[in-house]
């Protein structure tokens, strides 16, 4: 037990050590990009009003914000504030950054969490099914379907889903988070509104999992101990679940961690298509508005998410196979 705890501490420690320069580099890179950008945050801030605002007033706002101060100064100021827990105020939303993220992060995590569960279900169940009934029409249909959903852009799938389920059949709403007349969020309302986005995200992300599980299970099924188990007369289900799946799980976990960037990408597009008030959709608006403080915080968040994903994968790896000593980055 202690050995595992020590391993875990070592893994976490190494990851942290490598994360810090990574986070610094990424956020600094973002500042460099934003500084080099021709986009004028003041113009974005004023929106339509920019058409009727005189250039002098715009220059004043620019000076008030310190947009033209040197890059290094802006970055170090931001960093200093960050270490004190001060993330600044979003220029485009005129709210503290912590509030912007706090209000929206929950929804994104909810959608992602549900999608992960559904994705696991789809991938494991359908992948095993395909492996079990290898080369049958079912297998071909599932494999073909997986390839197709991998190749199809998730925003297109989302639009088609809206067209089929919301427009033509009228079963589910086409977007938003809740029914408008409700003054608070209800569970059934959420369920209805999140069904399509979660399903679309899960389906588009699960194809690789399905194919992966399928291959692993096929590989395992060929092995001697499985033949032995079958020969002993064990039920198919026991064979599959207890032996095949378990060894398939191991590599799957590590790849899972590496797929977090894809998941972030998927959430951004799903939030855009379904008009969900999550943190990923805010990122696009923040990028277009060149909202330095919000952008920096969101960049940080996204990179931390990926680092965490990799970290969890490393930790889970040791759980699945205690013989493995994984030290930081391979």
């Amino acid at each position, binding site marked *: 037990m202690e050995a595992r705890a020590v391993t875990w501490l070592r893994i976490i420690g190494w990851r942290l050590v490598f994360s810090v320069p990574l986070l610094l580099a990424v956020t600094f890179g973002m500042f460099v990009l934003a500084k080099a950008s*021709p*986009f*004028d945050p003041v*113009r974005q*801030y*004023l*929106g*339509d*009003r*920019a*058409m*009727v*605002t*005189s*250039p002098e*007033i*715009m220059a*004043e*706002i620019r000076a*008030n*914000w310190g947009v033209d101060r040197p890059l290094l100064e802006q970055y170090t100021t931001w960093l200093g504030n960050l270490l004190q827990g001060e993330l600044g105020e979003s220029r*485009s*939303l*005129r*709210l503290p950054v912590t509030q912007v993220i706090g*209000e*929206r992060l929950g929804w994104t995590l909810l959608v992602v969490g549900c999608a992960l569960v559904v994705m696991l*279900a*789809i991938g494991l*169940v359908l992948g*095993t*099914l395909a492996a*079990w009934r290898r080369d049958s029409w079912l297998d071909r249909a599932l494999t073909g379907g997986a390839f197709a959903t991998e190749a199809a852009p998730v925003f297109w799938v989302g639009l088609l889903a*809206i067209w089929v389920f*919301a*427009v033509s059949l*009228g*079963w*589910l*709403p*086409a*977007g*938003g*988070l*809740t*029914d*408008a*007349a409700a*003054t608070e*969020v209800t569970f*059934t309302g959420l*369920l*209805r509104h999140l*069904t399509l986005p979660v399903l679309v995200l899960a389906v588009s992300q699960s194809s690789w999992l399905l194919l992966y599980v399928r291959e692993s299970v096929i590989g395992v099924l060929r092995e001697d101990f499985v033949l032995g188990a079958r020969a002993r007369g064990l039920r*198919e*289900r026991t064979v*599959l679940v207890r032996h095949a799946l378990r060894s398939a799980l191991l590599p799957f976990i590590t790849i899972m961690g590496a797929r977090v960037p894809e998941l972030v990408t998927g959430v951004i597009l799903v939030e855009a298509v*379904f*008009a969900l*008030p999550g943190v990923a959709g805010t990122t696009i608006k923040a990028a277009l508005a060149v909202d330095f403080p919000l952008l920096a915080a969101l960049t940080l968040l996204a990179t931390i998410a990926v680092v965490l994903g990799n970290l969890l994968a490393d930790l889970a790896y040791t759980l699945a196979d205690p013989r493995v000593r994984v030290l930081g980055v391979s």
Partner: protein
Amino acid sequence: MGRGFVLLVAMLLAIAGCAAPTEPDAAGVSEETVVFGLSSEPDTLNPVLGYSPDGGSLIFDGLLRRTPDLKLHPALAESVPDAVGTEITFTLRQGVTFHDGRPLTAEDVAYTYNQVLAPENNSPIRGDYAAIEKVEASDERTVVFHLKHPYAPVLQRATLGVIPAGSDLAALGNAPVGTGPYTFTSWTKGDKIALTANEKYWNGAPAIRSLVLAYTSDDNARATRMAAGEFTATELPPKAAARFKDQEGVTVHETPSADYRGIMFPMKHPVTGDRAIRKALDLAVDREAMVSAILAGAGSPAFGPVVPGTDWHNPAVTGSARPDTEAAGRLLDEAGWKAGPDGIRVKDGTAARFTLMYPAGDSLRKELALAFASDAKRIGIDIQLAGLEWEAIDPRMDTDALIMGFGTPYDPDHTNYELFHSAYAGQGYFNPGHYDNPEVDRLLETGRETADQAAREKAYHEFQQVISDDAPWVYLVYLKHVYVVRGSWTGLETGIEAHEHATAGLLGTVPGWKPAP
């Protein structure tokens, strides 16, 4: 494994079952909670920081208020003063209190306006109040506006919502306290704002007790939610509203607006600087097709910057909705622009070619630009389109044409003064084409400084005629705003709306709505 599969299918069916359409929420049409589906959520609910300065904020009152027929009426002020000279005095109505019980005093009014003007607040609307030097409360009930110069249109600015003196601007933006017909209940960011009727409102409590402003920026999502019965009323783009036209229990209102789109030409460009080219393009535009295809019928052809239907509009300035390519061709031939071998006209070695820019995120302007370029091709003028971000457009505005839009119905001084007066040439979005006509300058100055209504109208009528003759812009269309309202109500009044209309405009009349008997 069959079991697992069955379980999954069962789960999916259960979800689909829960998602079976319920009856449209009765609350959507009762007199209890009325829900408006709106497109763009405000960043802040503080009028000083830009929330609904032209009225219709529902939470705040201004010194004056506007009825849909565009007339100004007293609100927090007792009467509408004359806008003569550089000092304008308002006397406040008695007995008005804020939602938290504090009585309204002149100090609150002065605070509101001075905060807008204060540079450190970076108020996005500060430019609109540039004519005001400062506002002071000379006693409990008297407010004096000190202007930098005589400015007749200043009364139009007095619809700004009044906030309590000393308020923290950011905090107030999230938990507003005003004197208006509705009090603030809650704001779920990204989703909705809930309001409750102000029982103690000085003008009588509204009949609709509970109001929800729900925000869905995506037009299609809003249309679907309206169809599902989630909203009592919403505003939609014309194509999305078309499906409601013949539905029972639902009324579609098309209100005219002063919001126009047109092509701004750079005067210094060898092709667009030639008046014959501009007038020919004006003749060749198929405005009728633009209104019916691009605006789905919710619009009208535009021939000038002042919207028909107001006293300011000069009825003599008009044109044909259908193109007249022959007349356009003749005009160009006479001016020396002869068709070249590839069909593009040439004069003195210069081909009739220029670039038209449109803002990349705006699909309406993109479609109008495409239609305009196609129309121009038919008379031998080659227009190259460029879809750019505003930052890329800014430096090119004095060499390339740009499809722009403006329009308020309240007073023709704003923004025509800034757009056409030579003093503003080349200043950002003001007069980007460097238009310079001394007669126009004179007319605009007269209109701004005279207080006499008849004299102002005459000046602006002449202004419209000169602009029409000179054609520094080719005006394309006026937009109509389309509202879909469920149920029957009295008190709905339509009028000419401005560009920014959210809860100003038709939905802003909600304090006067009552369910029809």
